[in-house]
């Protein structure tokens, strides 16, 4: 089944200079392989379109069933220079929750917020 990331993982973003990190954490270890396979650095960068102007690196933390994305040029030049209302990029992590991925039907019970 094809679902939005918000059912598979939770996320949090943080700032350092003009670089944002977006941590994406599987709701269950069973869901992590789908996440790791499908949510690549290239796909995340493409999903954010022009909102990320630099490169994106991905770090996999298998022990936490989590991926950490480091997005350069995501904060409009840096917190104090940014013209974005959300200059710290605290809401930036919410966008990726709309990313769609395929999850095997047998893992449906691990998905969150499916009504």
């Amino acid at each position: 089944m094809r679902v939005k990331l918000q059912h598979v993982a939770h996320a949090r973003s943080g700032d350092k200079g003009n670089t944002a990190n977006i941590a994406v954490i599987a709701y269950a270890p069973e869901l992590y392989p789908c996440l790791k396979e499908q949510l690549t650095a290239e796909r995340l960068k493409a999903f954010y379109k022009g909102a990320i102007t630099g490169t994106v690196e991905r770090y996999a933390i298998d022990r936490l069933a989590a991926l950490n994305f480091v997005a350069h040029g995501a904060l409009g030049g840096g917190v104090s220079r940014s013209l974005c209302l959300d200059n710290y990029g605290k809401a930036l992590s919410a966008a990726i929750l709309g990313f769609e991925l395929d999850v095997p039907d047998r893992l449906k019970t691990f998905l969150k917020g499916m009504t």
Partner: protein
Amino acid sequence: MKKVIRIGAGSAWWGDRIEPAALNAEKGRLDYLCFETMAEATISAAQVRARRDPTFPGYDTYLDERMKAVLPACMRHGTRIVSNQGWINPDGAAGRIACWLRTLGHRGVKVASVNGGLITDRVLELTETIMETGAPTATLAPSLISAEVYLGAEPIVEALRAGAQIVVTGRVADPSLFAAPMMHEFGWDALDHRRLGQGNGIGHLMECGAQVTGGYFSDPGFKDVPEPWNFGFPIAEVEADGSATLSKVEGTGGAVNLMTVKEQLLYEVHDPANYITPDVVIDFTTVRLEEVGPDRVRVTGISGKPRTPTLKVSISCAEGFIGEDMFFYAGPGALRRAKLAKRILEERFKIVGLQAEEVRIDFLGLNAIHGAATPADAPEPYEIAVRVAARTRTREEAVKVGREVDGMAVSGIAHTGKRVPHQDRTREVIGVWSSLVPRERIEPRVAYLES
């Protein structure tokens, strides 16, 4: 040596709530209460303010409120305080705290101040390259406001060893505020990177306060926590090897669970195997997390690598101004009117010759937060704020933004909602750059006074 020490968080930033700090002081059975009150631009903003306002004392503007809220309980329970509320004047903050101690009837309490991180006058000789751009730091000379080193835990440990009950610092790396009590209580060596890795890792989890106890977390239907209006700040119960259990005062809202701890573990982290602090390079990838009770998560196994030979320097520069304002549309057709308003502003900026480095016109309600990442098929909202901002070299140029929004009142389009300007619509931009300084060129100094 104590078997377990209890370290509580008192704040995660300047504007943080004060009542959870008071609750931690009163009910947390704490050995230490640690306050983190700075953002990247705090020092430079304080420098700018101190230049303009001779009455500004240069430390946390909430110092009085925070200390009044926690000092009585901390004195009663023997809880020591470590705080970075000193900003650009740790000595002044220490004096003020001593003053409050005397007012509360506590005489002879030792208060320490940690200085030595402010290096504005010699930053250009001590540093070479701007990390973000690769350009020489000397190019920043004309716009330089302030430069400060991120100090580590060692001067705080020195103050605690000398018997200080309260230690107030300027810029110190956030995790170091929490690692210092561990180093002192358990006698860890400053080069013991294994224990310092675990200890600073716990410090990293603590330094954003409620962000590990359910703050910045709730998402209805997906991640719900009890009473998200009543968070407790975290408490770490730390053992001699740095292993710790995170918890919070009973009866508070929020949650401490695997999800809140994982999110905070990676917050503001880049390479999780190499998180550089002044004390150690933390490796989070070896961490073990275990829920050991309600709102109790045990954190072990964070490792560390030897500290780097350099310390990070933040260099703040005057980089011009931002002008911004907004006005509103609602009802059927709100978006088409907002789009015309945007076009009018773009033309007006040409007519008045706005000189800007960057101009941004957003539709708040549709694309102001995620910008280019907004999905093409996002639904049209019922209400929209047109929000315009421009970054300019001079204040005169930045003022043009608000003046052109003023024009939208009677010279705009149908159904334009607009506020009468009630505040300054321009602000200064203080840009922050990073560089590195050899560790041995920096000499922290600890001063003491008694209440």
